[in-house]
């Protein structure tokens, strides 16, 4: 079977065309076309097909990572959106949690006020109210709903959110109101808050649903256009889009639930890292994807991608209450600027020179020192062999900007460049700590998987800061996200608010909730024509001690819900609480807040990576002086420059070394042993004393 992974990023569209049976792959990178992303995708497909000699018509499945929804949020360019909500509660979206994002600022903006997803004039209120148990206090005024819909229609609103209090317990009012709206405005994108995220906390649920409505028309249009364009070039294979939870979804699902694509592009990278790691026998990984302006960090435990805790997830400063992979993004990348701030402290980033003008070394007019310039000054990048020689760097420009900074600091240029890297690396190490140590995970048991354009440059030193001993660099670090797309399954989520307390819990009701959700997901898989044998349902629940406000996710055994199964769940919660927070309140009652089912529909995917042998001898293309910190002293090493793909499989060498390839440069510091494994990954292992 021939499958294609296509990941659209801000600058480049990455493609990988794979024969899933033979494992043969063709990779390709082409500039993105932000104004009409489908154009870049289709162009890229034609090119990669040409490169591989495979007709587009033979592609049976296309797996896609997109940033259309994310970008609509980031640049605040979505649909004109309306809302119908309870009388008396017109401004839930505007008041939010009445908290300022910044403690110490008079001039800040509240994002939900300065760039509202739905303007007040388009927020209509109607009579109708449920209580906390879902019982009706005031019946829904359907006539008022109809009038609101007509009114919004006249004002050219393209998308409408129906959001009522307590709809997560009883969606009847929302559903009825949505029906009324659809009957009046058949072309509008209509969504209810409970169908997007049936969880309590009205501001967060309404906001998540408002986002869905805001980006809905755009995402729906994009998916439709892309499908058409693909058909035009003869691709008849099925389109599947990656969602924020790391699974794939059909175009119909995406059109219904556009907000599930908000992290589409980022997640694929973590997936790719997980896949590469699992074939190398590593089930515990920290992925570090470093580009020009930012670094994205993901955690993989026992082969599973760590999920974000429901209330930490944000897009463009708006809260998102949807299942998402936990990806922590910080402003640290190759373009990060080293500078002395107003308080005279030394800092690196978060400002970035980006790709344009970029680092001074790029010779595009950049005249501030960046991380890339520091790497060049230290000899870690090779001026005449950058990106496989496709681009040359200006070492004298880097030396000049770093030299200027050094003079202001009263340090040598080497000290300054190395200091810049140390600060950047430590920012990344802190970010990784916040996702590991702070959650009771010891990163020393993990392997650091570095990819993206700059990940392989920094991975070893970041690992050393965290006490990690092993580093893994995938064969094609620049297209790891596209690889990740070919490794996922269809995945849908169902969720119910349960509010069930240990001791008074109704087992039959709980069973009913799980059965109901599993039936809901099964219906979707049937629609997608996934054979029953390929469907798997995983149950989870969010638990807390009664009175707490934050929950922890616990696996629930499948099959019949029994007292014994629940006992297991309670115990797992105490353990998890202790592990995560360092303390458990064993005597206190526990509450199940939400129950969830993750439905997975297995699809054909990339199996084994291609076997790798390498050459008999590594081909050394040069050597240069390279500066490293050893035992807290800067030392200069004569360091070999080696063609990465020439490294013989499984043969070990000692650092330092600089490994060159077309999409990145890998730095092996002194004190590390490195080799290439049978799958073509570069592996690094820290020697005991280093």
């Amino acid at each position: 079977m021939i499958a294609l992974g296509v990941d659209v990023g801000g600058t480049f569209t990455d493609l990988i065309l794979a024969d899933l049976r033979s494992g043969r792959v063709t990779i390709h990178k082409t500039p993105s076309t932000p104004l009409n992303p489908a154009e870049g995708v289709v162009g890229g497909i034609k090119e990669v097909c040409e490169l591989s000699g495979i007709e587009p018509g033979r592609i049976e499945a296309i797996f896609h990572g997109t940033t259309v929804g994310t970008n609509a949020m980031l640049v605040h360019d979505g649909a004109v959106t309306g809302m119908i909500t309870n009388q008396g509660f017109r401004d839930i979206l505007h008041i939010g949690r009445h908290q300022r994002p910044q403690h110490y600022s008079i001039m800040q903006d509240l994002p939900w006020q300065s760039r509202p997803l739905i303007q007040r004039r388009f927020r209509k209120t109607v009579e109708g109210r449920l209580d906390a148990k879902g019982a009706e206090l005031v019946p829904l005024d359907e006539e008022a709903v109809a009038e609101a819909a007509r009114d919004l229609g006249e004002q050219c609103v393209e998308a409408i959110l129906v959001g009522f209090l307590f709809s997560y317990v009883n969606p009847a009012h929302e559903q009825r109101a949505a029906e009324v709206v659809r009957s009046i405005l058949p072309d509008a994108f209509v969504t209810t808050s409970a169908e997007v995220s049936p969880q309590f906390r009205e501001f967060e649920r309404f906001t998540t649903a408002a986002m869905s409505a805001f980006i809905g028309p755009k995402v729906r249009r994009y998916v439709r256009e892309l499908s058409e364009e693909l058909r035009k070039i003869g691709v008849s294979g099925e389109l599947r889009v990656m969602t924020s939870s790391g699974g794939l979804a059909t175009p119909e699902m995406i059109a219904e639930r556009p907000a599930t694509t908000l992290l589409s592009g980022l997640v694929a990278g973590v997936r790719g890292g997980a896949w590469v790691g699992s074939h190398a026998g590593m089930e515990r990984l920290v992925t570090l994807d470093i580009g020009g302006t930012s670094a994205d960090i993901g955690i993989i435990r026992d082969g599973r991608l760590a999920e974000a805790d429901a209330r930490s997830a944000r897009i463009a400063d708006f809260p998102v209450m949807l299942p998402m992979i936990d990806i922590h993004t910080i402003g640290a990348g190759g373009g990060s600027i080293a500078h002395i701030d107003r308080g005279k402290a030394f800092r690196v980033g978060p400002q970035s020179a980006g790709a344009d003008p970029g680092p001074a070394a790029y010779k595009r007019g950049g005249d501030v020192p960046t991380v890339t310039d520091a790497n060049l000054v230290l000899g870690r990048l090779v001026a005449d062999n950058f990106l496989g020689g496709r681009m040359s760097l200006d070492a004298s420009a880097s030396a000049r900007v770093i030299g200027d900074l050094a003079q202001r600091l009263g340090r040598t240029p080497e000290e300054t460049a190395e200091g810049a890297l140390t600060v950047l690396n430590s920012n990344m190490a802190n970010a990784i700590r916040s996702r590991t140590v702070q959650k009771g995970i010891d990163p020393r048991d993990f392997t650091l998987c570095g990819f993206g354009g700059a990940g392989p440059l920094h991975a070893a030193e970041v690992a050393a800061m965290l006490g990690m001993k092993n580093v893994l660099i995938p064969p094609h670090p620049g297209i790891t996200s596209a690889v990740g797309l070919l490794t996922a399954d269809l995945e849908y989520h169902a969720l119910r608010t349960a509010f069930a307390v240990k001791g008074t819990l109704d087992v039959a009701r709980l069973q009913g909730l799980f059965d109901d959700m599993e039936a809901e997901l099964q219906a979707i898989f049937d629609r997608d024509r996934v054979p029953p044998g390929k469907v798997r349902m995983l149950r989870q629940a969010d638990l807390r001690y009664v009175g707490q406000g934050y929950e922890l996710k616990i696996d629930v055994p499948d099959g019949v819900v029994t007292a014994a199964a629940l006992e297991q769940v309670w115990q797992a919660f105490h353990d998890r609480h202790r592990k995560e927070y360092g303390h458990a309140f064993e005597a206190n009652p526990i509450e199940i807040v939400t129950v969830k089912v993750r439905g997975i529909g297995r699809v054909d995917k990339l199996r084994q990576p291609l076997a790798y042998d390498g050459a008999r001898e590594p081909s050394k293309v040069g050597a240069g002086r390279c500066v490293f910190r050893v035992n807290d002293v800067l030392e200069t090493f004569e360091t070999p420059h080696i063609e990465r793909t020439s490294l013989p499989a499984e043969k070990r060498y000692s650092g330092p070394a600089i490994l060159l390839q077309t999409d990145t440069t890998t730095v092996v510091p002194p004190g590390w042993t490195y080799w290439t494994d049978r799958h073509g990954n570069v592996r690094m292992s820290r020697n005991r004393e280093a």
Partner: protein
Amino acid sequence: MQTRVDPFLAAVIHGALENIAIEMGHKLMRMSYSSIIRESEDFGAALTDAAGRQLCECTMSTPLQSGPIPGYIHGILGELEKRGDSVRPGDVFMHNDPYGGASHGPDVGFAVPIFHVGVLAGFSVTTAHHLDIGALTPGSCGIVDAVDAYAEGLQFKAVRVYEGGRKVEPVWQILRSNIRIADLVVGDMEAQVAAARIGADRYSALLDQYGLDTVTGAYEDLLDYSEHLMREAISRIPDGRYKARTHIDGYLDSPDPALKELPIEVTLTVSGSDIHVDLTGTAPQTTNKPINMPLVGTVDCAVWLTLRSILLDSEIYGSIPQNSGLTRPITIFAPEGCLANPIFPAPVIARFCPGNAVADTVMKAIASAVPQQVSAGIGNLRVMAFSGVSAGAPWVHMEIMEGAYGGRFGKDGMDAVDTLYANTRNNPIEDIESHLPLRVLNYELRENVAGPGASRGGIGSIRSFELLEDGAVSVEGDGQRFRPWGFLGGADGSPAKVELARSAGGVEELPSKIPYRPLAKGDRITAYGPCGGGYGNPYERSPQAVLDDVLDGLLDAQAARADYGVVITEQRVDEAATQELRARHN
């Protein structure tokens, strides 16, 4: 600038310190039970050195909780010295003495000392607002009739709750027997200890890795750094005296004139890179009413926070480490026996609103020196406590009601939000109604009350609660008598108000302070939030912005015409009529 530690290493250590404080706060928030901590985020977390100087604070915590932490440590150390006692490994101290550095009684601090090679190296501290602290009426706010410090609840002065690593059981027993809803409150206290211990462990590990001298040097550099930034900002203000006066309600329903319409006066003297803040002219203390503000723990935090928010606004400067270095250029004086420096045992538990009024007055004083960096007058906040006994179990719910900012240079004021020294979160309606015999009837912006200005003032909220069972309410508010000040030609904002609609019939307007008042099932209480002052001449406001407010239902066409000189017909600006009207006005 000379530094003690290599700037690169210093940056690494600063990042590590901040990470520790964030972890403490993250865990406290997630472990705690009462909504005042987990939802409202009314807690603090910070590390200090052995002398109590703050090294870092948790970015999620509210300023009024983290800010006073150095004061807590000074209070604990002072108390121990008085007793001839000292800090030993394995101790955990509990402290809430408002005359010993604490913010006020309900904000209980837990301090875990950190030892490095046998020497006291610092403290890891968490503070949090507790739902009840054993005062005369349920809850820990709206105790507006406490007559002295003893009526405010339990007082802890450097009390050991762990000694040599062992729990001091009698103390915990006293807590359990003297605090209402002890399960929640004591659970929160245990969470505070657990979070502070995590901070202590992490800080110890940092000391082990780099050594005390290096870490000390790095944070001394960090203090210098913050000080340097603040001094640089102060230097840009012309030398001179800047003065302002505002008023708080006090007890509007009191027959005693000494208890109402009380002045707050601030004189700032800027010379070079120093600012001296003098509160002379502020009303005398209210000896038997708890709206006095401790100088340390409330007044100082209000002053520091306001000056740094204006002079080192994080929107413009980016995030700047909050530590004791920032406060070095600022000295504060308030005459003993005034509202801003009461004498023990004058009660202080309800100092929340007056403290924010001090913050607002500081902003008003400095406004003429830095007019583009301030907002016009803010709308103050209000705290409400609902309580009762449901199915045999006592319950307490605290809600902090938002205010609004005044208009700003080129920007309208922020609507319905916590102001200046407070930055808590509201409770989701769906959380309140799921757990308490309360119903929320509305939560919206008020209409036609915004303070007009070229940038209009932020708009206050309206929020109503109905009791579904018999219960009670206590209210601790202000800003019902005086309007938030307009600036540079902007009009004043609108005051707050509170109404009680009895199920038995009749609507009553309430004063801003209501001690424990029993309510019947079906009674409804409605809080109208204040609206901030306008900034700049309203006749210079862009007609499009006026139209937007009209389209959004925040302003009607009549008010657009009267307040802004903008003529709107059929949802459009009548340009000609507007020009004419505005010309006539000038």
